[in-house]
Structures are given as C-alpha cells and as structure tokens.
C-alpha cells in the first residue's frame, strides 16, 4: 500500500533529521580540549584541579561591567587588585608594593592624596609590564560616557583625578578625605573593588569601537594578572582558569574549574558526592548532611552581613507608635530572637546581633542585644499609653490600634521568622500586618514604588553590610538622605534624622586614622542602640564547604580566594 510507503518514508526522513541534528550538535560541545596529563609526565610543575560550584553564573568578567559576587570572587584567580584581604580581612599587597599609610607616605597628611607604589616584578600574563598607566586607563574607562559601566562609585563622587606619576606610581586625588579608600580604590573586594584593566588590550578596542562594552576581553579575558589565567568560559556550564607560570608566586594547582550549578539541592548532592571541592551560600540546616561523610568541612566566613530590623521612624509615613523610642525598645524586648535563632538557624553560626556592624570587626560593637523580656515590654507600652482599651487583644491609643506593618522579601526563612514574631508580639498585645515583596521590588527606589523607600512599613527586615571590609554605610541614616517625593534618590528609608548622628557619620567618613574611626563607630552604634534605630536579628556569615581533598584553603570574607596560589590537592 502506498500509504504505508509514505509513512515509512516520513519516518526515515524524520529519523535522519534527528540523527543529523544529533550528529551535528555533538562536536559543538566537544572541541579538542585534550588536557596534558600534567602529573604523570612530570614536565609540568602544576597538578590537580580545584572544582568550585557557583549557584549563579557571572554575567561579565570585566570588573567594570559587573557587581556580581560570583564574578568578583573569580578575580582572586586571574585579576589581582592592588591588594586583597586575608582571612582576618587585613590587606595583603598584591600589585602594590606595600599598603599605603601615613607612615610610608602613601596617605597624605590632609588625607586627600593617595600615592600607591606598584611592584616592579609584576607583568600581565602575556608578559607586558603592569604600570600606572593601566590604572589611569581603568579610571578613564569607568568615567567615560561611552561605556555603560555598572557603577561609578566611588570615582564619580569622591575622586578628583587618577594620575600616573611615573610607571610605578599611581596618585589618586580625592575631593575630600575619603576614609573608605582601602576597600573601594582598585581593591580586591568583590563587591566594591574594581580591579584593573590591561590598557594594551583594551585601548585599541576603545579606539576602534568607541566603547569597550562589547570587547572580546569581557567574556574571554585571556590577558590577566594573577596566579591563574583565563582559559575558557562555556556559557551556563563552566569557567576554567589555568596555572600562570609567569606569576611572581606561581600556583600549585594546574587548573581551577568553576561549574555553574544553579540548584541548591543539586549543589548539595555534588558536594556530598565529592564532585565539587568548594561550594558557597549553604544554609545551616545542610551542615550535618554535608559533613556526614567526613570529607567535607563547612566553614562560616564573616563578610559583614547582619540580618536586622530597620524601624521606620519617619513621622510622615510611620505608625505613630514607632516615633516613640520606648515603643521601639518594647518591640525589641518583646521579640525572642534567641529562640528564633535556635529554632530556625544555627545559634553558634548565627548568634543574635546587637548592631549593624557586629559581623565586621574591628568596627563591631561590644553591645549586648536587648534581652527577651515581655514583662518589661508590656510595662514600657503601658507607660507610653498603648493599652488594650477595647478588649480586642491588641493595644491601642487615641483610637489607633497598635498593628505594625512588618515587611520583608519573599525568602522562606524570613517568612518563617515573620510567623514566629507575630505569635511573640501577640503575647504583649502588638499586632502584625505581614507583607512580602519580590527582592527587586523590595529594594526599589522611591520613584519605582519601593515599599521601603516610600515608607510603607513600620519594621523592615533584611541582611545588609557596608562596603565590606570598610564599615561605610552612612547614607542610610543621614538627614539629607531621607527619601521623599522631593528627594526620590534618598537612601535613608527609615526617615531617621538626628544632628548628632549626622555629625558622627560625616566625621568618620573623612577620618583616615583607623583607631579614631573605630571610636566614632562605637559612638554611632551606641546611639543607634539607645534610639533603637537598628534591631539586630542575627549575624549572617557566608557558609562555604571545602572538601579535604583540597588543602591550604583559607577563605576570607572580603576576597575569598586570596591565597589560591597556595591551594593544592592531597596526594
């Protein structure tokens, strides 16, 4: 029958299409990437692979085009900054010969000029020397209107100019003394540092295309400056860095293999199975499972983050009770954060914090968190005039019920905390109106209907940090930063205004003497504590897993892979 013949024909055709597609597609993912068996021949000094899982893929490797954590931390491998930070978050010179200070003349007496000496023995991976011109070029690229860079902080607001005094000397002029330079000027901090661009590679691109937005180097930075050098990046799959034999301190490993594993549960399985050596952003409830096999160690690394409550004290938008410091104190006393931490987290990793900077030594406070004391909370509320006059179980005053808008993003842990807190508050007669927002909405500015910026809350919860390891986060509490229709860019979403606080924040920002600055921060934190402007929930360190197969891994909160050249695999 003809009909059957057609069927057969079409089946054959479609089968061949499928086979052809299969056959055509396979080679696309397997270019000849035969790796030399380094440890067998003995010809290569490097051996072993460190496999790291990233739950998010870097968007761009050019430091100017990304603020992503997962892009920033790769730079410890292939693009060293002037300095990185060790496991105690102390600066370690990388491209700089030494850390500038007042003693070595690097920091001028008026604090407005920074002079940085470069090491003389450092070259780009292609052999070209790294000079001050590269830094000047980087600054120019950041400030150019032709490049759509991710952020111009702090260069736009604080830096007057960046100059090359001689090939080995960079001079940075500030508009006013800038205390946060160590973290923010060409440093190895993945969130705040910018790194340096190779001028000899990118200047020709800029001249030809008028922008470096689309430079090949952004996704394949084959010229770098670190113990490893970029080898390949296959979108969605992996990034490989190979040992750079020409670096001043050559690594021991042959390659770093970063695998993108977006699913948390799959990352967990890969860690347990030993398919990955290092993983990050684990949660405390995973620790037992991960460490059960005996090969994996989970390490808590402080990177400054503290989970906290931000009370709204803006008279325009807040619940009237929030303006009374004793009510805010009562809220802190009525919340059993110690039980929350014990039940929902790991109290040894996430102890209750008292201040915004408690996870950022040496700027942390020695304050004790407000205790759980519901009786004292009731007494304070009674004294403030908030009593349950209508017998509905919630306190009220002048016809206004004490129901507070308690908002956060839609993270599951925070929703659980909201539920527990609602129950705890009800014991002292405080009502809770819970609201959750998607993360992008939650942090939107005033003109984009951000709920915090517009003050549509009484208590907002999230985890935040200054520009770690620097404590700087002044904008959050300065009077002139209060967000409103007239000042939509304001970052003081709590509406807090206190001339004393303004003075302290402005003073510390221009104080380059660390000891003096620490003293300012003690005063700032005492003031915030007394006025209950920040209620600490818990310290929020990053949880990393490290397989014992990989040795000498000393993670830092500020630049995690700072000592990658010392890593080696166990024999």
């Amino acid at each position, binding site marked *: 029958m003809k009909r059957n013949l057609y069927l057969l024909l079409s089946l054959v055709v479609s089968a061949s299409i499928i086979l052809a597609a299969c056959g055509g597609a396979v080679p696309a993912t397997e270019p000849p990437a035969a790796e030399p068996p380094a440890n067998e021949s003995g010809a290569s000094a490097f051996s072993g692979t460190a496999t790291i899982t990233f739950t998010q893929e870097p968007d761009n490797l050019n430091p100017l085009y990304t603020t992503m954590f997962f892009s920033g931390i790769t730079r410890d491998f292939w693009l060293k900054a002037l300095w990185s930070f060790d496991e105690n978050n102390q600066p370690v010179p990388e491209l700089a010969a030494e850390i500038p200070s007042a003693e070595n003349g690097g920091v001028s007496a008026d604090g407005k000029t920074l002079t940085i000496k470069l090491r003389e023995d450092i070259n780009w991976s292609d052999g070209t020397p790294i000079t001050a011109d590269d830094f000047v070029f980087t600054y120019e690229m950041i400030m150019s209107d032709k490049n759509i860079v991710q952020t111009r902080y702090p260069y736009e607001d604080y830096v007057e100019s960046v100059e090359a005094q001689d090939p080995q000397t960079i001079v940075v002029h500030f508009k006013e003394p800038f205390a946060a330079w160590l973290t923010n000027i060409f440093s190895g901090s993945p969130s705040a540092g910018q790194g340096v661009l190779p001028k000899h590679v990118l200047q020709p691109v800029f001249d030809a295309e008028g922008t470096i937005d689309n430079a090949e180097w952004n996704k394949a930075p084959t010229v770098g400056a670190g113990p490893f050098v970029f080898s390949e990046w296959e979108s969605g799959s992996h990034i490989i860095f190979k040992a750079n034999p020409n670096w001043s301190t050559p690594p021991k490993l042959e390659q770093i293999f970063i695998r*993108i594993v977006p699913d948390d549960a799959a990352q967990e*399985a*890969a860690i347990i199975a030993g398919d990955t050596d290092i993983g990050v952003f684990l949660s405390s409830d995973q620790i037992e499972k991960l460490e059960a096999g005996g090969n994996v160690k989970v390490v808590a690394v402080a990177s400054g983050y503290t989970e906290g409550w931000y009370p709204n004290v803006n008279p325009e938008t807040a619940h009237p009770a929030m303006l009374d410091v004793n009510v805010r104190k009562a809220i802190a006393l009525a919340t059993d954060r110690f039980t929350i931490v014990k039940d929902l987290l790991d109290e040894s990793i996430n102890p209750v914090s008292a201040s915004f900077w408690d996870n950022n030594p040496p700027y942390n406070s020695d304050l004790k968190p407000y205790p759980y004391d519901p009786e004292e909370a009731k007494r304070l509320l009674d004294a403030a005039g908030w009593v349950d006059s209508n017998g509905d179980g919630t306190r009220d005053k002048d016809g206004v019920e004490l129901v507070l808008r308690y908002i956060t993003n839609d993270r599951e842990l925070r929703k659980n905390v909201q539920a527990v807190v609602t129950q705890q508050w009800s014991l002292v007669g405080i009502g809770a109106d819970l609201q959750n927002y998607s993360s992008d909405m939650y942090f939107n500015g005033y003109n*984009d209907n951000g709920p915090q910026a517009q003050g549509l809350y009484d208590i907002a919860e999230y985890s935040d940090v200054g520009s770690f390891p620097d404590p700087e986060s002044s904008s959050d509490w300065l009077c002139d930063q209060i967000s409103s229709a007239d000042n939509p860019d304001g970052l003081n979403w709590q509406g807090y205004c206190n001339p004393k606080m303004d003075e302290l924040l402005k003073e510390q920002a221009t104080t380059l003497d660390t000891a003096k600055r620490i003293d300012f921060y003690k005063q700032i934190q005492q003031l915030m504590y007394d006025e209950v402007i920040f209620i600490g929930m818990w310290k929020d360190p990053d949880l990393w897993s490290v397989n014992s197969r990989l040795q000498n891994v000393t993670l830092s909160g500020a630049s995690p892979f700072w000592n990658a050249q010392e890593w080696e695999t166990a024999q």
Partner: protein
Amino acid sequence: MSTYILRRLGQGIPQLFIISIILFMLMQAFGDPVATLGARTPTKQADKERLRRMLGLDQPAYVQYLTWLVGNDWRKMDLDGDGTPETYGQRRGILRGDWGNSLVTRRPVLEMIGDRLPNTLILMITAEVVIITSSLAIGLYSALRPYSLFDNLITGLSFVGYSMPVFWLALMLMYIFAVNFRRWGLPYLPTVGMFDPEVGKTPAELIKHMILPVTTLAIISIAGYSRFVRSSVLEVLSQDYIRTARAKGVRSFQVVLRHALPNAALPFITLIGLDIPFLLAGAVVTERIFAWPGMGRLFIDHTARADFPVLMGILILISIAVVIFQIITDVIYSFVDPRIRLG
C-alpha cells in the same frame, strides 16, 4: 502544495508580529533590570538612572519595542545625561538581523542562544527519541494485551510517573545513582554538568552525564505518551477494517504493523509536531538541577534578571519554530493520511 505552504507562511508573519507585541507587553511586568544587577546589595540610585538612560530603558515602552524591532541607529541618544541627545544608537533591530544585546552580559542575544542551543538539542533530541520509541513500544504492547498483568502494571507505573514532580524525580535519581551508589561502592553516575574536568570533554563523558537527565525527562513523558498510544491503538483495533483484515486471514503481526499502527499513529504525529519546537526551549527544571547549560537555564537565569532582549529572543525563536513545524506537520499529515487534501 507549494501555494499552500506559501500561504501558510504568509499567515505566519502577521502572527509573529502580534506575538512579539504581546510578549513585549508582558516583558514590562518582569521587573526592573537595573534594580539589583545580580549583586547582593541594591544598585546605587545614581547608577540606576545612568544605566537606564544609557541602556535606553528610560524610553516609553513603544519606543523600546520599535528599537527592538527596527533599531535606533538613526536616532540620537543622551549618553552623558546632559539632556541633549548626542550619540547615535547602535541597534539595528530584529528585522535587520540584530537580535539585541543582553542587558546583563552585554553580549549579542543570538550569540548567547547559539552557545546554548547545541547543548539543549543534544539533551532534548536524545530524550525525545527515547520517549517516542519507548512509548510506542509500551503503548503498542499494552494495547495488544489490554488488561493483562503487564498492561495493568504499566498503567499503574504511568500514573506514578505522570504525577511525580520533575524536580523531585531528578533529585531522587541523583541521590540514588550518583551519591549513594558511590557511597556503597557501586558503579555510579556523575551528579551535575556535562563532563568531569579531570577527564575532559569526551563523548563517553557526555553520555555518562546525559543518562540521568535523559532518564528524568523520559520517565515523566513516557507515562503520558504511552497511554496515548495505547488508547489510540485500542480504538483502531476495534475498527471494522481490522476485523475484516483478520477475517481475511492476514497475520496478526501484519494487521498491527500495516493496518493498525499507521492509523493509530496519526494523532501521535500531531502531538510530536507540537513538541518539536519546544525541544528548542529546553527543559527548565531538569537543566537547572543537573546543571545542564541549555536554553531552559538561559531563560530562567535571565528571567530572574528581567533581561528582556534575551527573553524576547528565545520566545521569538520558539514562536518561529512553532509556526514552521505546524506547517511541516500538516504537510507530513497529508502524506500519511490520503484523506487529507491541502490546498
């Protein structure tokens, strides 16, 4: 026939326009691409405004759509923020072959799709072949022995397979065959990725890494498909012409293969024809869990960052594939079933 195909293609073009407008409107609800930029801290306000201006996100939605469609290289943009446009745009628009650049990676969308498409096709086509052959075999066997032990067993298992959440199935398979098998000292499979970095990108590695994701995809789909084949074959087997064939003494093997199967396969072809364009889209959940660098992951990752040029690119590509494969299916149909005349 060719006039039919031309006419169908002609209908497809306005269809795609309407689809693109609807999709673009939906994109507006995806959130703000410059809100977090994937970082742990929110973007500074000054940077947000500068980025919106430079990326053209401050323009009204219809201008952004027209830029996406036909480009903006004749229109000046204000890049330095002084209020006067001074630089010509760089986009040429999708109609002139420019699919735009990702807001996140700043790379051309077409290049990004090109990176992922082969990976997705390897996985999805393999899975689809496994699914089609197994469900045909299972469905046929069940239909020939309805209500037998095998049929009942398969029916039961289909329902289990059909009702299993993909992510759960995927993780279970991973834990059993990759984590526990290794612990128990049995031959085990890898957890995630496409190859082992210590071994390199060899075909053997690829196959090893494909077993679990393909199994996951197959288990979920075979369940439904085999039921479909079974009922379709059962229906045909009860037709008069089958009885006639049997009465004429045609061997039952021939009855099934030459008379029943081709007729029963008709609706199955439609089903597969609908499926094929979506092979391009990849499998969002399976790719995510097994860290397979395919299209599904690309879509989800860039949805999270509200990267509309990439999302539009993927969706339009799939829309085009749907239109084309619909036509192909109809044409094949007319070959397979002579009752259907196109024209």
